[in-house]
């Protein structure tokens, strides 16, 4: 029941769902939700390998860094979203077509 394979399958499902969220949604915040799911799938893999394969805790360290990067990414991403909304008054991803102004 609880084996490396089951964790990898959960992680796979999480990854695919995150990918589909990223592709199918048109709202920038929803795309960020998808990114969070994908990053979590990766972090889960690291911890699972750390328990079932290696004998050290490097996997834990790696997933801690993934959490840190995810938090930083969310903060900057959402700041950009709010700025974008101030300029365009929408957060439809297809409206983001200009590099300046």
């Amino acid at each position, binding site marked *: 029941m609880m084996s490396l394979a*089951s964790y990898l399958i959960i992680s796979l499902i999480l990854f695919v769902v995150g990918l589909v969220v990223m592709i199918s949604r*048109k709202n920038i915040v929803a795309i960020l939700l998808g990114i969070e799911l994908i990053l979590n799938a990766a972090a*889960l893999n690291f911890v699972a390998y750390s328990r079932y394969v290696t004998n050290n*805790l490097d996997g834990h360290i790696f*997933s801690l860094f993934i959490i840190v990067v995810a938090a930083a990414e*969310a903060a900057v991403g959402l700041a950009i979203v709010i700025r974008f909304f101030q300029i365009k008054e929408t957060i439809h991803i297809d409206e983001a077509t200009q590099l300046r102004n």
Partner: protein
Amino acid sequence: MFLQFLFISSAFLTIASAVAVLLTKNIMHSCVFLLASLIGVAGLYATLGADFVAVTQIMVYMGGVVILMLFAVMLTGGKDFISRAQNLLGLPASMGNRWTYGIGLIVGLVFLLTNIKLLMGITKSLPVKTITNEFPSTVNEIGHLLIKEHVLAFEISSVLLLGALVGAAIIARPRKQN
């Protein structure tokens, strides 16, 4: 037994909420389901004996990221843009018709089978590790690893966080009306 119960419930929570994130039309609800999914992942970490990582996950996501996302949804009107034409899964029709999905399924299956075939060999050659149900504390060891072997990554991540903090504050600051 308790561990298995925790595992099954966390796995169910993770996957069901992740699918709910995908299928929910209301973006606010999506954020709440994302929170549930991330708590499920924290539960999975706990079943893997990663107590520190599990609590960090709860701390960062529940206390920070999800609240930020809820704020962003609220400040940007909370509209979600679902295209009118949808297929059976509730996904926009622009993602493909049955032919693209069929081809994708076949390619995916072939890819999966080849990967299983390849990975089986690797998995068998992995060092056999005895898995016990004893969960030793990981906090001390993680602390030592962070300031000895991974100290460079640790410092770089602190710089990254500082950069993200300043950058987010500058990007989102109110615009001057001129």
